[in-house]
């Protein structure tokens, strides 16, 4: 069993999020003032950023056109370096393979680096059900594991939580520590988590990580972390299992480098992530540390079907999170509203594929079609087009009028909450202005085809009506 989706109730989920004033304040601060600003700053330091995006798109398209050949080459190189490759058709098969490796290693505890793929296959529940304790080691993942929640963001799993909530969670779970200790500040929380997890790192029998990409040339896989947790996970235990999905292969070390020049800059605005770790096979005979056994699990889980479908472009995704950070809907609903593992625009394209369009038919409509996601995607995935493709499929399955109805309901939800309405609108105006550019008009605007087919639509000028009213412009 994978995580039970709650996508059908997206509207209700969203409404709850909109009424949560604490969550709203947190989202405003971390998304608009946080992620969006950081990306702009990161971009400004690399003049070649746009050209790198084109090159990355072309690279990923090339890989998708030659996917089977690259995977076979990768497999051969891993074997040469003393590792094993396992192919998993679906989530069940991946869980079974990983469980078997853990059981053969007599594993009692397993440390984990952050991996969305293991969320996709709901690995932790499966291991726990078989008496193996999985311990998430990325701080955000650790927090949501303690709370039995799904990540609310693909690169910042605990983005929805306040430090007070984290403190509460630690007090409930770290019961061997003094109950009256002061956990009011973030550094104290980090210190406590570091100490707790240090023990786990040293005791683990198996380490499981994801892989942001893997390299056919050398049989190498790559993880990217700021904390150093995945890096300890892949070097301390005697067995290392890396799980990745088939579309993440790249031809050469240089191609991986191209993507790594974009990933951190787009995701967090960093020049480079603190740790990029490249691992190849098992430890070598003379090495003083590293795992004796290395296993690479390659997951399909329907990606080979996507490759042959009108959703092929989503397979270029490098999971940077930028589309999520720039989505006005995500910016107010947060991640849990989407009801499954992957939130935001990328999630609205992927989730229907994994849980079925009947369950997820609302997600492709959970969009203002402002086009911001496509604008920021480092591999130029046409996300609005892919969402439209899903809406066609939803319509064919008898979910008519998804867009209009949901769009209207979202508007009604906003309209009942004036402060939010204002905020979402001011984001929207910024976006609209940017699209219009210097001309101050559009030749085309998503959702306004009927108008723009024959004429330009003037871009909104100045602020929102409410802004201007507030400034006394009457």
């Amino acid at each position, binding site marked *: 069993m994978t995580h039970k989706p709650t996508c059908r109730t997206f509207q209700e989920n969203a409404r709850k999020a909109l009424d949560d004033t604490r969550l709203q304040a947190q989202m405003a601060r971390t998304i608009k003032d946080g992620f969006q600003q950081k990306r702009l700053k990161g971009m400004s330091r690399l003049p070649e950023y746009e050209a790198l995006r084109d090159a990355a798109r072309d690279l990923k398209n090339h890989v998708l056109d030659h996917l089977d050949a690259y995977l076979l080459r990768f497999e051969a190189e891993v074997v040469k370096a003393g590792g094993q490759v396992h192919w998993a058709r679906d989530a069940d098969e991946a869980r079974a393979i990983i469980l078997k490796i853990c059981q053969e290693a007599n594993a009692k505890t397993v440390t984990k680096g952050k991996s969305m793929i293991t969320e996709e296959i709901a690995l932790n529940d499966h291991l726990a059900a078989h008496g193996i304790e999985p311990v998430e080691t990325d701080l955000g993942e650790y927090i949501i594991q303690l709370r039995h929640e799904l990540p609310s963001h693909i690169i910042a799993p605990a983005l929805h939580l306040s430090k007070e909530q984290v403190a509460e969670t630690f007090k409930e779970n770290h019961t061997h520590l003094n109950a009256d200790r002061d956990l009011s500040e973030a550094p104290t929380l980090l210190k406590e988590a570091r100490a707790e997890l240090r023990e786990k790192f040293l005791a683990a029998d198996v380490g499981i990580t994801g892989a942001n990409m893997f390299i056919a040339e050398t049989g190498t896989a790559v993880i990217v972390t700021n904390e150093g947790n995945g890096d300890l996970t892949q070097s301390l235990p005697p067995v290392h299992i890396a799980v990745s999905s088939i579309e993440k292969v790249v031809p050469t070390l240089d191609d991986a480098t191209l993507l790594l020049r974009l990933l951190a800059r787009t995701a967090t605005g960093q020049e480079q992530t603190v*740790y990029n770790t490249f691992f190849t096979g098992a430890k070598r005979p003379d090495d*003083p540390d590293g795992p004796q056994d290395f296993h690479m699990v390659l997951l399909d889980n329907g990606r080979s079907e996507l490759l042959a479908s009108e959703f092929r472009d989503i397979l270029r995704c490098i999971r940077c999170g930028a589309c999520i950070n720039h989505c006005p809907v995500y910016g107010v609903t947060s991640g849990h509203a989407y009801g499954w593992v992957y939130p935001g625009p990328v999630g609205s394209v992927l989730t229907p594929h994994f849980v079925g369009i009947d369950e997820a038919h609302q997600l492709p409509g959970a969009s203002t079609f402002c086009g911001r996601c496509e604008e920021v995607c480092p591999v130029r995935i046409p996300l609005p087009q892919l969402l439209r493709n899903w809406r066609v499929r939803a319509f064919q399955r008898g979910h008519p009028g998804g867009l209009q109805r949901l769009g209207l309901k979202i508007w009604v939800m906003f309209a009942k909450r004036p402060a939010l309405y204002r905020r979402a609108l001011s984001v929207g105006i910024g976006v609209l202005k940017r699209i219009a550019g210097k001309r101050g008009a559009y030749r085309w605007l998503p959702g306004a085809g009927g108008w723009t087919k024959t004429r330009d639509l003037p871009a909104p000028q100045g602020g929102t009506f409410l802004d201007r009213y507030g400034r006394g412009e009457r």
Partner: protein
Amino acid sequence: MNGRDMILSRLRTALDRVENYPANDFRWRASATEQRIHKAGPVLLPDRGRAEGLARIELFASEAKLAQAEVRRLAAPDDVPQVVADILKSTGWTHLKIAPDDRLQALDFTGTALDITCGSGAGGDHAGLSWAYGAVAETGTLVMRSGPASPTTLNFLPDWHFVVLSTEDIAANYEQVWARLREEAEPDTPVMPRTINWITGPSRTADIEQTLLLGAHGPRKLFILLIDAETI
């Protein structure tokens, strides 16, 4: 059919389509991939990755500082023990774990009060000392290559990590480091060691309310001891 054959056959069905021409034939795909791998090289090199000579060293140092690493310029390797001891003075720590690297083993720590042991990282290590395989100027990144002289765990377990770097090992860009690894590989052995770590600044997290905090699971502080190649 087992999982592997099933996945490969599904991929083939998806790729053998007319519109995938000319890659709609597996033999063509296999030879195209081999060619691409054979011709491996930079795809698009940003200007920042083209610094040369002294500018390369300066760029490395300034980018590393931007990532919150501390960079010290040393006159010669013989200065390492005293510099490390001075930096550690404020902490009260008396133990230093050093990597089993000949160049580090040759250092004379007798003038310092430090107690030296050699080996992999351990859970309680406060201070560790390694020698970098290389570095990348464009982002101030250290490159650590695992092997008998360089245990990976020492890069992550100590609270404070000291890394000696020779100026001659600073590459302008990442791709130059890959080229060097390919060149140095013995025939019929993998180009890559078990682990390569790119390290850009000390460990950090923003997972609590997106507030940046240093020292998540890896070192809280990273000291780069930069030594002019001619003195080594």
